[in-house]
């Protein structure tokens, strides 16, 4: 594995001179720096918090796997849609002949505690990203990469399942950049907002947070979809990490970009 890293590093060194790399790839000085410590620490804390939010969220969801639009909804009103799964409440007609055990108590405790961890960690990360240029440098796509040609090239490469180019050892490609930006500044704020909009006390202080969404049940439904998209992101993220060298990428997110220093040479 370390040899592979060393090769990547050497190739990247060589190619940076020989091959015209994508515009996103920042030139020499910063290109070799790996993930900043703040990025690595916040990444793993967020990963843990998100897993806890996911598990507890599913547990809360199964107590009422029906979704509505507007302010109100219950088993006495027609749902927008319902999930074909059993429920943890006998009052919900699911078509299954059994009721799952009630897990809402610890799930709600864990959900909100993890939400605090995720939100506070996210604030540290966003503060860091804004102040030190992490977003501008590493996540904002270069204009050239946003052209139809630039985008279709990267998309075609993904569809052909071609491995990442050497230029991507140290930098994100345009699809990664757009996806990360969407997750950080789109899905996470949305899932936090819709989560808070379900809180009756928060809604009393900031009613527009609910009314802008069309009601408390709309907030719950959007919260569900935002969580589904975050889960899809997580799965895609893990698969892509796997395809591009799992151990290497994970090590880079744990220890920075240590491949070249860990090779023992």
């Amino acid at each position, binding site marked *: 594995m370390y040899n592979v890293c060393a090769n990547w590093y050497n190739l990247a060194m060589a190619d940076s001179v020989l091959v015209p790399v994508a515009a996103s790839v920042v030139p020499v000085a910063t290109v070799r720096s790996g993930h900043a410590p703040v990025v690595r620490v916040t990444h793993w804390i967020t990963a843990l918090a998100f897993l806890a939010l996911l598990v507890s969220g599913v547990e809360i969801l199964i107590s009422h796997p029906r979704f509505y639009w507007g*302010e109100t909804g*219950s088993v*006495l009103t027609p749902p927008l849609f319902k999930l074909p799964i059993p429920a943890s409440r006998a009052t919900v007609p699911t078509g299954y002949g059994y009721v799952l055990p009630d897990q809402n108590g610890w799930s709600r405790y864990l959900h909100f505690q993890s939400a*605090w961890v995720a939100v506070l960690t996210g604030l540290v990360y966003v503060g860091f990203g804004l102040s030190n240029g992490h977003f501008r440098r590493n996540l904002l796509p270069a204009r050239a990469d946003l052209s139809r040609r630039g985008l279709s090239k990267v998309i075609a490469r993904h569809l052909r399942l071609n491995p990442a180019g050497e230029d991507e050892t140290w930098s994100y490609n345009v699809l990664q950049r757009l996806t990360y930006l969407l997750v950080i500044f789109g899905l996470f704020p949305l899932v936090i907002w819709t989560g808070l909009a379900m809180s*009756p006390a*928060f809604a009393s202080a900031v*009613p527009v947070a609910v009314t802008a969404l069309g009601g408390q049940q709309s907030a719950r439904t959007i919260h569900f979809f935002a969580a589904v998209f975050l889960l899809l992101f997580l799965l895609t993220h893990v698969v892509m990490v796997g395809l591009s060298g799992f151990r290497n990428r994970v090590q880079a997110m744990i220890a920075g970009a240590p491949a070249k*220093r860990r090779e023992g040479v």
Partner: protein
Amino acid sequence: MSRISRRKLITAGLGVVAGASGVAAASSLARRYGLIPPDGGGVYGPGETLTYAAQRLLTRHSSAREFAPSQISKDPFANEVDPLGEAFQRLQEGGFAGWRLAVDGLAAHPRSFTLAELKSFPARSQITHLACEEGWSYIAKWKGAPLALILDAVGTLPQARYVVYRSIQSDWWESIDMADAMHPQTLLAHGMNGRELPVAFGGPLRMRVPRQLGYKNVKYITRLTITDSLKGFGKGLGSASPEGGYAWYAGI
């Protein structure tokens, strides 16, 4: 460069010390201003405390959303309750004429009220949302005596911090802090959608705390106890909910 420099070590050490003293200072401030919930210990204590403290700072005086009559749910869901027992049935057969609300604890004039006496308080009507922690909800028009008026009538003492309330069902009890107890929208509800409060919805007397979820809105209220500490009640976690694994504070 791969080794941690002395300067980094000192900086990190100072950071940890500053962080720890910050947490200690914050927790003593939180205690002084009553921002620690009774179930603020244990694994989930930090999250519960953050939620309760943040919402108290943000929502102490805010009012639950009120709705237009056209938004009242046509089919409100009553949820199921355990069998109500013989004592309740006897009271129900008597048209609840014998129903009593006892108010005790930190009150200058502890006493009990009949339903008629509670209905003689200036009633408040409000159209509010009731959401269950499971995810379903409905909107109804609630009518009742503001809890604040009853607490005033018994001469609640200034050191009061919580109001414990009990159902005729002996294992069903809850408590709220004074911010919610004195809140103008917190009612001892006896009417719903222009009629007497139906038994399925908690009639003859239900606590309505519209800034908190359904399970704080205990049905069949028979007793209020005003207190400065929740330690002596049950396991000291504030209500029956934490004893059953649910958070004491249900504003979220």
